[in-house]
């Protein structure tokens, strides 16, 4: 019996009068990589941001339904508690205007870790997990902006890993990256899934095929189909899924 991370029932989201997510129900298993695909405005980013409560920042945000995480209702938990456990890597590499090590230590410092030695340990561990340590270990004090795009994105992954989350959400993480950097990020994701649960929103259907154990297809705010990636891509159940995967629209 696979452990469940998330159990989502009848999730509905509105921004003002716009009904962005309609009656989404699904479960997400522990230590899986779930790819979420769909054309723009399909609600996949809204769905992802629900999982770390970032939608709370939008004005006129309304939600109905239940998202169960670790036995608790995610919607009712304190946002900080949620975000400590469920981290996010964004689409564009977004280093904070700080040094490399300060970026990685930001999370732990906010959580109260002050001990210099401990912070150094955390930095090293996180950068190693993100496959960035060797490239930056001699210049941890330099500005994060001096790194290349791909390195910055791995820095952002390290930053997220530093707070030891449970789940990592990836919001189109390779959209600004060249193929080599993309490959490195995907490689990291596959290793990370052994320790974490990963949900990946991607515009790149082929990436979903490469990486995801299961794939979810969203269209116009609804969850159309959710199945093992292999099956989705060879014999999708819904005509619309097939159309999107084949590039007939999107």
């Amino acid at each position, binding site marked *: 019996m696979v452990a469940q991370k998330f159990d989502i029932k009848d999730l509905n989201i509105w921004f003002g009068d716009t009904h962005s997510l309609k009656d989404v129900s699904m479960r997400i298993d522990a230590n899986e990589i779930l790819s979420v695909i769909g054309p723009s405005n399909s609600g996949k980013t809204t769905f992802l941001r629900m999982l*770390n409560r*970032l939608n709370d*920042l939008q*004005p006129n945000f309304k939600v109905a339904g239940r998202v169960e995480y670790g036995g608790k209702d995610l919607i009712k938990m304190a*946002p*900080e508690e949620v*975000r*400590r456990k469920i*981290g*996010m890597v*964004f689409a*564009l590499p*977004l280093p*904070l*205007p700080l040094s490399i090590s300060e970026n990685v230590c*930001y*999370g732990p410092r*906010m*959580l109260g870790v002050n001990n210099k030695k401990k912070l150094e340990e955390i930095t090293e561990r996180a950068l190693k997990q993100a496959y960035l340590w060797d490239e930056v270990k001699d210049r941890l004090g330099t*500005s994060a*902006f001096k790194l290349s795009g791909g390195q910055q994105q791995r820095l*952002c992954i390290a*930053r*997220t890993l530093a*707070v030891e989350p449970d789940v990592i959400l990836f919001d189109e993480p390779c959209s600004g990256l060249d193929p080599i950097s993309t490959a490195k990020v995907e490689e990291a994701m596959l290793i990370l899934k052994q320790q974490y649960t990963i949900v990946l929103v991607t515009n790149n259907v082929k990436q979903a095929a490469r990486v995801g154990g299961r794939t979810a297809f969203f269209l116009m705010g609804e969850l159309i189909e959710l199945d093992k990636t292999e099956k989705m891509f060879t014999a999708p159940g819904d005509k619309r899924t097939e159309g999107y995967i084949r590039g007939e629209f999107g």
Partner: protein
Amino acid sequence: MTHNPIRTQKIAFFLLFLATLLIVVPVGLIVVIIIVKGLPAINWQFLTDMPRQGMRAGGIFPAIVGTIYLVLGAIIFALPIGLLAAIYLSEYAKENYLTRIIKLAIVNLAGVPSVVYGLFGLALFVVFFKFGASILSGSLTLGIMILPIIITTSREALESVPQSFREVSLSLGASKWQTIRHTVLPNAIGGIITGTILGIGRAAGETAPILFTVAAFYLPRLPQSIFDQAMALPYHLYTISTQVPNVDEKVRYGTALVLMVLVLFMNLIAIVIRYRFRKKKKW
């Protein structure tokens, strides 16, 4: 006569240029006159000596000191309140009726005539709170007067910090206040400093708010506490221009020069800081 649009344009542009000259040239003249006629009076003695002979001679030291005290007091009051108010508007306020009213209130505070601030300071601090005409009353009055400047410039600085920084900080588990304190504020500091300095410049140059709340015509010694009255540069200039006869012309110009340089210098620093922070911005 045929209508020639090119010629019309030439004439129109020339007139517009003339209008611009009409503003810029007198400004230049004013500054030049004050410098030329005021510079002869400026020496170390003038700046550090007490006034003598009923202010016809001697120095303007107490006025300089008084102005410094008043401005410091005004900033100590206005900066914390103004900055927190700006944080509220930028980070917490929602798009609702209350926010609209707050913004309207700020616009109004900015537009209240300075002499009305003087009346208010008189009624509230001097009379009602019984602080009397004092540095305390004057500083508080000036502080409320520069509050809109601090709020507006700080708010703009805060709002110019990209939203993505906040999202990154929050997604790492930081609380809202932690995000403000560690990510938003440090990146808005340039604009906040600029606004503060502009506020200082304004507070230093105003006369009407301090007329009834603090300004002393002539004090034989420097103020010892915040409950004392004080002299101040703007009021001193007013006094020796209108109330005291036979003041040496260069003393008047000299005082005007000191005041003008002080205020313009503040504005210049603010502009330089704003420029350098804009260049340093890495995003």
